C-alpha cells in the first residue's frame, strides 16, 4: 500500500536514500549533486515527507548517503564521484556560522564537518560502523581500496584519521591456507604495533599476498580491478560486536565478496570469501560453500553461464540478533540475489579445549549458500535487510523491488513485490488519493 509520494524530490535521478535510525528522517542524494533531508509529518493524519534541508554537497554525482548512530549526534556521510567522502552534522542554527543550502526555516542546518580525500577514484559506498566500535566509517572506491576512518575529536567531528586502508583484490582470498597463514603471520610478529601496511615486514608480506593473489586468480578474468569501471562496489559492516570489526566487501568483476576482519592487533585478514561462480571445478578455493541443500536454490551446476565474470554490486549484512550464524545477502550483475549463511570460527581466546576438540566447532569461518534467486532476471542493484534480519529486499533491472522471507524448514521464499509499471487495474484503483500525499514544496 502506497503511503506517500515525495513529488519532485530531486532535479535528476536519485542515486541513494537512507532513513535515520527512527525512520523519521530520510536523506536522499542524486545526480544533481545535492543532499536533501526530509522529515516525516504525521500531524495531518496522512503521512507526508517535508523538506527539512537541501544543499549542494559535492562536485560530482553522489553515490551514497549513510547515517551515523544517533548516539553520536545527527550525522551523515556522503560519497561521490568527486572522489571524496564528506561528513555532515545537523546543528542548531544559532551556534554555527558555516551553513549550507537554503532549506525552509527550521531550527537546524546541516554543516560540513570533514572532507576525506584519500580515494583515487570515485567513492561508491560509505557506511558507518556499528556504534559500539566508536564513530568510524568505511568507504570503498573504484581504486579498489577499502578505507576506514575514525573520528578523533567527537564533539567537533573535524578530525578523521585513516585507521585502515586495504587494497581489496590484493588481500589474499580466504583459502584454508591463507586464513591459517594470516594467523601465523600475526603471531610471528608480536612486536608489531601498527596495523598500517608500511615498514619492511609489511612490504614483504604484501609481496607474499600479491603472489598468493596471482596464484589464486583465474587467468581468464578480464583484468579484475584494472579498469575503474570495475573497482570496489559495495560494503556492509557486521552488526555484531562479539566478532570484532568485520566488513563484507564486493570488489571487481570476479563475483566474489570478501569478509575482512580488522583488529588493532594484526593486519586485516580475509576471514572468508563468498564465491558463487562455480562451473569449472578447478581452482576452486576450499572454502567455497558446499552443502547447498535447499530446493529453492537454483543449483549453480545447472547454470553454466554463471562462470562469466560479474560484479557483486550490493551486499548487506543482516543484524544477527543473537543467532549463532550470520546472514549476508548479495545482489549482482548476474541477476541473482544470494543469501549466505556464515558460521563464525572460534576466537583467539576460544581455542579448543582437549575435551571439546572435534565436536564440530570449526576454527575458521565457513559459509553456505542458503538461497539463490533469479527472479529479477536481470542485474540486481541493491539488497537490504529489515532491522531484525527476517526480511530481505532487493531491486533489479526488472523495475521491481522484491521481498524475501524465511519460511519453516529454513527455506527462503518470495514474499511480495513492488512495481512501478502501469497496470490497468491500478488506473481504477480508488483508494490512493494523490492529493493527500503532499510532496515537498
Amino acid at each position: 500500500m502506497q503511503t506517500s509520494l515525495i513529488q519532485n524530490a530531486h532535479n535528476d535521478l536519485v542515486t541513494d536514500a537512507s532513513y535515520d535510525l527512527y525512520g523519521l528522517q530520510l536523506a536522499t542524494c542524486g545526480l544533481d549533486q545535492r543532499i536533501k533531508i526530509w522529515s516525516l509529518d504525521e500531524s495531518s493524519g496522512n503521512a507526508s515527507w517535508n523538506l527539512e534541508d537541501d544543499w549542494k554537497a559535492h562536485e560530482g554525482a553522489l553515490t551514497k548517503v549513510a547515517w551515523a548512530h544517533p548516539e553520536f549526534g545527527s550525522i551523515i556521510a556522503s560519497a561521490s564521484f568527486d572522489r571524496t567522502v564528506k561528513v555532515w552534522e545537523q546543528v542548531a542554527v544559532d551556534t554555527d556560522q558555516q551553513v549550507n543550502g537554503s532549506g525552509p526555516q527550521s531550527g537546524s542546518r546541516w554543516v560540513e564537518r570533514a572532507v576525506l580525500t584519500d580515494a583515487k577514484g570515485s567513492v561508491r559506498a560509505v557506511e558507518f560502523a556499528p556504534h559500539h566500535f566508536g564513530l568510524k566509517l568505511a568507504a570503498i572506491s573504484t581504486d579498489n581500496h577499502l578505507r576506514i576512518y575514525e573520528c578523533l575529536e567527537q564533539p567537533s567531528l573535524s578530525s578523521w584519521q585513516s585507521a585502515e586502508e586495504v587494497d581489496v583484490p590484493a588481500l589474499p582470498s580466504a583459502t584454508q591456507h591463507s586464513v591459517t597463514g594470516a594467523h601465523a603471520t600475526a603471531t610471528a610478529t608480536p612486536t608489531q604495533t601498527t596495523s598500517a601496511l608500511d615498514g619492511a615486514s609489511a612490504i614483504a608480506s604484501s609481496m607474499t599476498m600479491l603472489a598468493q593473489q596471482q596464484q589464486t586468480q583465474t587467468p581468464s578474468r578480464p583484468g579484475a580491478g584494472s579498469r575503474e569501471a570495475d573497482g570496489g562496489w559495495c560494503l556492509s559492516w557486521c552488526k555484531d560486536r562479539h566478532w570484532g570489526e568485520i566488513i563484507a566487501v564486493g570488489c571487481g568483476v570476479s563475483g566474489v565478496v570478501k569478509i575482512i576482519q580488522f583488529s588493532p592487533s594484526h593486519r586485516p585478514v580475509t576471514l572468508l570469501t563468498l564465491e558463487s561462480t562455480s562451473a569449472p571445478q578447478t581452482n576452486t578455493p576450499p572454502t567455497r560453500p558446499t552443502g547447498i541443500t535447499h530446493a529453492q536454490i537454483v543449483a549453480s551446476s545447472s547454470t553454466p553461464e554463471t562462470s562469466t565474470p560479474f560484479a557483486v554490486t550490493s551486499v548487506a549484512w543482516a543484524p544477527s540478533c543473537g543467532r549463532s550464524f550470520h546472514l549476508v545477502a548479495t545482489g549482482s550483475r548476474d541477476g541473482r540475489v544470494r543469501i549466505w549463511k556464515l558460521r563464525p570460527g572460534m576466537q583467539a581466546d576460544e581455542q579448543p579445549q582437549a575435551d571439546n576438540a572435534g565436536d564440530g566447532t570449526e576454527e575458521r569461518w565457513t559459509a553456505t549458500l542458503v538461497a539463490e534467486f533469479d527472479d529479477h532476471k536481470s542485474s540486481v542493484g541493491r539488497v537490504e535487510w529489515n532491522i531484525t534480519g527476517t526480511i530481505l529486499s532487493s531491486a533489479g533491472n526488472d523495475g521491481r523491488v522484491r521481498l524475501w522471507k524465511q519460511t519453516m524448514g529454513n527455506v527462503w521464499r518470495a514474499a511480495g513485490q513492488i512495481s512501478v509499471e502501469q497496470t490497468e487495474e491500478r488506473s481504477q484503483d480508488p483508494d490512493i488519493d494523490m492529493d493527500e500525499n503532499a510532496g515537498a514544496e
Partner: protein
Amino acid sequence: MSTCVSLIPPLFEESCLEDYLKSGRTVSFTLRPTANELALFATPLDADFRTGQPTSQNYPKEQDVYVTCWDEVPTSERRLFITDTSIIFAAFRALVDHVKTNEPELMRAMEYMTAFRKLAGDYITHIQECWVHASQTISRPQEDTRFTGEHYRSMYTSLSIFQTLYLPEEGIDDVPVGDELLEWLNTHFIEPSTEEGDQLSALEKPWEDETFWQYLIRVTLRGLTKSSIFFLQALSQHPSEHLQMISEKLVSILEKHPRQKNYATEKEFFTASRRWKDRAKALRLELDRVPDDDRQDEFENWWDNISDLLGIIEGRAEVLQRVCVELGGDWKEIICTWGVWIDVGLRRAELPDIAGRVMYDVPSDPSSKEDSLHADLFLGRPLQALSVAHDIDVWLAAHLADIMIPLGLLDSETDDESKLTIRDQYVIAYADYLQSDPGLWRHTVDYLCSCGPVGHQMADEILLRVPLRLEESAGKHDAETSDGDLAEVVKDINNTCFEYQREPVRRMICKVAAQKLVMMKKYGLAISYCLSAEDWPGLGRIVDRVLNEYIAHGPSRFTSLVADIAPSLQELQVEPGPHGVFVQRLKFAVRYAEFHHRSRSGAVDYAALDLISMFEEDLAPKSWWGVLLNDSTPFLQNESTLYFSAADASLLLRRLEEVKIQTDHGYGDDYLGVLARTMNLTGAKEALKRLDVLRICLARYFARCILKGKSRIV
C-alpha cells in the same frame, strides 16, 4: 504479503520495461526501519554514471520518491483485535511460564488444560466479534480489503475446530467426540438452510417438492431430530401405506436416539446405542418387505430415500459417505457425522486415521486454505496446519503455535543454529507484521520477548527505534519546573526494558535522548538522561558544552543554563560512584556559575570565596585557570575591601606562577586556551600578557594586606 503493490504515478507503461531501461533508468530503494515501509526511486541504470552533468536525458527532470508499506497497515478494527488478543496472549504465556517453572510435569493436567481451553475460547470470542463487525461494515469503501468478514469467519471456524480437537472440555480427551464434532459442523457450516425448512413446512404435501428427501436426509444426518420428526410425521399423509407405517416407526426410533449427554456412563450409552441400532435393523427387514410396486410415488422413489435414511441410522459407513457426497457435503460432513451415526465411541485419537480414509475418497479442497487447514488439523498434522494458517493470517499461525507448545503438539526444543523453536518462528513472523504499525511497538516487543534470547535481541531493535518525542516533552518541561523528569515515551520504554531486563538497550536509549537534548540545549534534561544511562563520559561532554556556552556567549546565558543542571549535582553527590572526574567537572560548572551569579547580584564577599574555593578544592580544570585568575583581578583592585586573605592571594600568585612557567615551556594553551577564546585573543602568549595586570594587582594587594595587618605573607 505475496501480492504485488503497484505505485502511482507509474514510471513506465505496461510492458514497456525495455524503453524504461533504454532511457538509462532502473529502480532502487531503501528500507524504512519502522512501519514496514520502503522508499523507492528511479536511479541511473548504469552504476558507472560518471558525473552529475545533465546528459541527454530521456527522462523527466523532476524525480519523485515513493513511500510504500509492504503489509497492510492495521485499520482501527484490526488494531483493536490485535490489542485485545495480545492480552489473552500475555495471560496464556503467564500461565505456561508458571506451570513450566513450578510443576512442568502437570502441564497437561486437567486443571491447566481447562485453563488453556478457556483462553482459546477467549480468542474465539474475539474472532467471532471481529467477524460479526467486519461483516456489518463490508459496504464501507475505506475498510480493510484483506481482513474481511469472510477472513475472520475462516479464522473462527479454524480456531474452533482446533479447540474441539485438541482442547477437550475438562481436559479429558479420551471420550467420544461425535457430538462435539457435529456441533462444530452445525455451528459453522449450516445445512440445510432454515429457509428451505420454512418453505417445505408450509406445503401441504411436502414430499411433492423436489428438495424434500434431500432436506429430510440432511436434517437427520445433522442430528436435527425435531425437523426430521416433523417431516417424517408429515409422511403420515402420504398415499403409500407402507411409507406411512415406516415413517411412523422411524419417528419412534429417532425420538429415542440415544445421545451421549443423556447417559451417566459411557457403558450405558454404548448399550443403549446398540439396542437402538438393533431396532433400526429390525425396521430394515420390514422395509425390504415393501413390494416393489409401492416403492415409488409420482415424484420420487421414496423407498431408496428411506433406505438411505435407515442406512445412516443403522450405521452403514458406505451409505453415509455416499449420501454426504450426493447432498453436496464434503469430507468434513462425513467425519463430523461419523461419531454420531457410524461409531458412537469415536475417540480423538482415532480421527487422523478415519480422516485419512475419508479424505482418500473425498479429498479436501486444495484451493481453499481454510479447508486445507481443517484437513491438517483433523489429520493430526500440526506443522502443516501452521503453514496453512500462516498463509491465512500470521496472527492465526502465531497464536495456534503458541497454544500447541504446552499441548505437546510441537517440538519445544530450539533449533541449534537459529536458537528458535518452530513456535518462535511463527510468533516472530507475527511480530514482523505488527511492525507495520509503529504505534503497536509494545505488542511487538511483548511477542518478541516470548521468543527466547534471539527474540529479546530483536525486541531491542524495536525498542531502540521508538521515537522519543523529546521535542514535545521538552516544550512541556519549560512550562513547568525543571525537575529533571523524563519524557513519557522514555518512561514507557524504560518500564518495558525493566520488565524484560533489557538494561543495555535502555541505557542506549537514554544516551541517545541525552545527545538529542544537548542539541536542543536542554542541558538539565540531558543530564537526567545521562544519569539514567549512567553515561559518565556523556555527562562530562554535556558539562563541556555548557562551559562552551560561557566561552561563546558570556556569563549571563551560562548562569541560566547552569541553573538548569545544578539540581542533578545534588543527586549525584548523594550517590557516590565511579564517576568522580565527571562530577568534579559538573561541580566546577555549578560553582563557577554561582560565582558569576553572586558577583552580579552584589554578594561580592561570597563570590570571592567561590573563586578561591575553586582553586583550593582543585575544582577548576587547568584549562580554566587563566579565566579564573583573570576574574580575580577586579576583586584585588577594589580599593575599599580586601576580599581575599593574604593566604588566598598567595594561592592566586602560585597559580599564576604555574601558568607562566608552563606557558614558557610551551604548554600555554592548556592553561590559557579558554581565556584566549573568551577574550578573542590570538593565543596563550597574548593571554598571559593580559594577566600581567593581575601580577601588579597582587603585589599591591600584598602591600595593602601588610599595611592593614590582615595577615602575614606566606
